[in-house]
């Protein structure tokens, strides 16, 4: 049986891989709200103890999802600052607080998404050939809005894991967007056609590295060398405002494959869940606050990082 921390990590990874970080955050908030609704605490102390335990588990996932941690932290802060211990309604009263915090977070997410999309659509021009890779809600929002706005462009999907690519194909197809699929290891054959690269990401860490889907590093490197504009779509709430861990999260899977001649060969197949890409390799960082250069993003990141210091000291005191 998996320990809870690992179980939550795997769930987050699975969901993020399928629907992206923003949608994962939304699912997280809904799940938290329902869990609190169904929870029957012994007393207030029990509620606070269990909420704190959950908070510890969520903030220590591999990799950390900053959007979720920030949300959880905000909720926790709201609960503590209101000093609600001993309220006659018990945790039902706290539930309302949590519900309000969740609604507020969802509203902020919607507003940020709208702004980010608006900035992104402005970057799509006539006859653009846009390369996309992983499932990013922000990138897809921009493409759908650009299509709605009547912009004439086409998309090249860098083919990666079958399920993710299939999902992208279905989504673009439903959205009526013209696209071609090229295996990611054959992109060199179409790189001259590509006018822009649109990518999403999980977070930017304190090393100023973008944590993105596996395969992003190679794509960014290739198109950075060709000087094709590379756009990163990320809300500033996704910035990781704490010290990053040294370890890279990886999966190691041993596969047994049967070859055509029926020979059983066992070999180690290593899969990595994410890539870390230097922020400076991107040309434009599209956020809700506008379109920034890597330097401007770094400045904004440092400012937010410093502002978060008191929280960080309290929240990540176990580091």
């Amino acid at each position, binding site marked *: *049986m*998996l320990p*809870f921390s690992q*179980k*939550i990590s795997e*769930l987050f990874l*699975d*969901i993020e891989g*399928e*629907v992206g970080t923003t949608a994962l955050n939304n*699912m*997280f908030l*809904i*799940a*938290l709200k*329902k*869990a*609190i609704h*169904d*929870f*029957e*605490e*012994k007393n207030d102390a029990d*509620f606070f103890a*269990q*909420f704190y*335990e*959950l908070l510890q*588990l969520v903030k220590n996932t591999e990799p950390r999802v900053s959007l979720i941690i920030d949300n959880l932290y905000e909720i926790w802060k709201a609960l503590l600052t209101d000093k609600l211990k001993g309220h006659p309604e018990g945790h039902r009263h706290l539930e309302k607080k949590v519900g309000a915090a969740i609604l507020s977070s969802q509203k902020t997410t919607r507003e940020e998404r709208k702004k980010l999309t608006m900035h992104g659509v402005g970057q799509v021009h006539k006859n653009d050939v846009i390369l996309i890779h992983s499932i990013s809600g922000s990138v897809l929002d921009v493409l759908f809005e650009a299509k709605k706005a009547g912009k004439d462009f086409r998309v090249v999907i860098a083919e990666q894991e079958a399920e993710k690519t299939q*999902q992208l194909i*279905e989504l673009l197809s439903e959205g009526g967007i013209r696209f071609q699929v090229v295996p990611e290891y054959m992109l060199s054959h179409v790189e001259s056609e590509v006018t822009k690269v649109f990518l999403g990401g999980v977070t930017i860490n304190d090393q100023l590295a973008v944590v993105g889907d596996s395969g992003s590093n190679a794509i960014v490197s290739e198109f950075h060398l060709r000087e094709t504009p590379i756009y990163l779509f990320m809300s500033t709430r996704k910035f990781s405002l704490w010290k990053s861990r040294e370890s890279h999260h990886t999966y190691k899977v041993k596969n047994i494959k049967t070859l055509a001649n029926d020979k059983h060969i066992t070999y180690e197949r290593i899969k990595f869940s994410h890539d870390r890409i230097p922020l400076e390799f991107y040309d434009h960082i599209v956020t809700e606050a506008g379109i920034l250069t890597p330097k401007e993003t770094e400045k904004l990141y440092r400012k937010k990082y410093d502002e978060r210091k008191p929280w960080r000291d309290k929240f990540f005191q176990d580091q």
Partner: protein
Amino acid sequence: MDSHFTIAAAIFLVSFLAIVFDLGSKALISMSGALLMVVFGILTFPQAVAAIDLDTIGLLVGMMLMVDVVSDSGIFSLMSVKIAKFTKGKPWLIFVMFALITAVCSTFLNNVSVILVILPVVIALTRGIGLNPKVFVIATIFFSIIGGTLTLIGDPTNVIIGTSVGLGFDDFVANLYIPISIIAVVVGTIFLAINWGTLKPISHSLKQLFVSNLLLQKIEYEFTKTEISKALIAKIIVVFTLVLLGFVFGDRIGLNSSVVALIGAMLLFIVTTKNSSIDQSLSKAEWTTILFFVGLFIMVAGLEEAGVLTIIGNEFIGITDNFLYLLLILLWLTGIASMVVDNVAFATMMIPIVMQVQTSLPAGGPDHQLLWWAMVLGACLGGCGSPIGSSANVVALGIAAKNDCKISSFEYVRIAFPITILMLVICSLYFIVLLS
């Protein structure tokens, strides 16, 4: 004892053992045995062809085609997700709801099809919320078999017995609903009781509630990515309702079960032209199973023709002249045999023997039809007792292993065998009460 007798017995025995010990494709073994019956002159070719029970074959093919359309429609996945959401991740409710839905679906669909669709959701859900999926896998097997026992079309054994003997859909339900309901409640309670440690409510654990709810959202997203047309669902429900009505009332207008199933399948293809393809469904039909049945019918006809079954039947009648004892012997014999041998093969062999027993019994006594219900209960429920007792067990354990939930034969038998014995005891008590 003439040479035909010896050859027919030898062909059947060798084929039967080869099937039991899984020495090759069941279809290949039974068809080879059938052809040997013709080659050695035990049956003529026309006799062999006449031995094939087309009612059984028609019913099986019709249901296979219908189930294929329904499975591909995504209705099962949608239903599983709705149930998963309804349970709110409560382990005991997951257990009760999935047991119920598995049993209900298995009453009118092939057990294997039900397991293929429901079990992956059950495993994903239970594992995700930190439960051991093994108990849920075994419970799913039990409830698919218990549900399947209730109707003519719920289990291949019932199809063979029902169509060979002329028992209709309503006969099955009317005669079996009492023991099956009792068994379902008792087995469900036992599973809940012995696993209460893991099935108890999680409302006092915030982290478990959180993981359950997050997982439910993931499952909902994964299994309902493709939007299912409401019109398609409505068409499938209408056709299935008509087929069920046809099974119940068909005899009164001269339509037997196989004709009803085939009409249902064709009707379904016609009304769902955009969403189904008869070519694809035909290519996915289990033709090896059909050939296995065809071979079995011919081999059993060979045994009958050579007089082997008459001798076995006479021996069987000679055991006792007490009808209750005869019923109990038949129930336990088919029950125990079905744990270790293919219950379809065993039932096919037993049908002519029981027919002979039936005709030799004095008139005016207890209802002789009870013999068939004893055989149905024994053959179906006995299949739960071992990992190879029925196709549902084999498929379910295979799915579990694929999902990193390997259940060893010992683990399975340790849980399943005592519960199977208990089910047979309940059936015995039912017959004792009925005849007293």
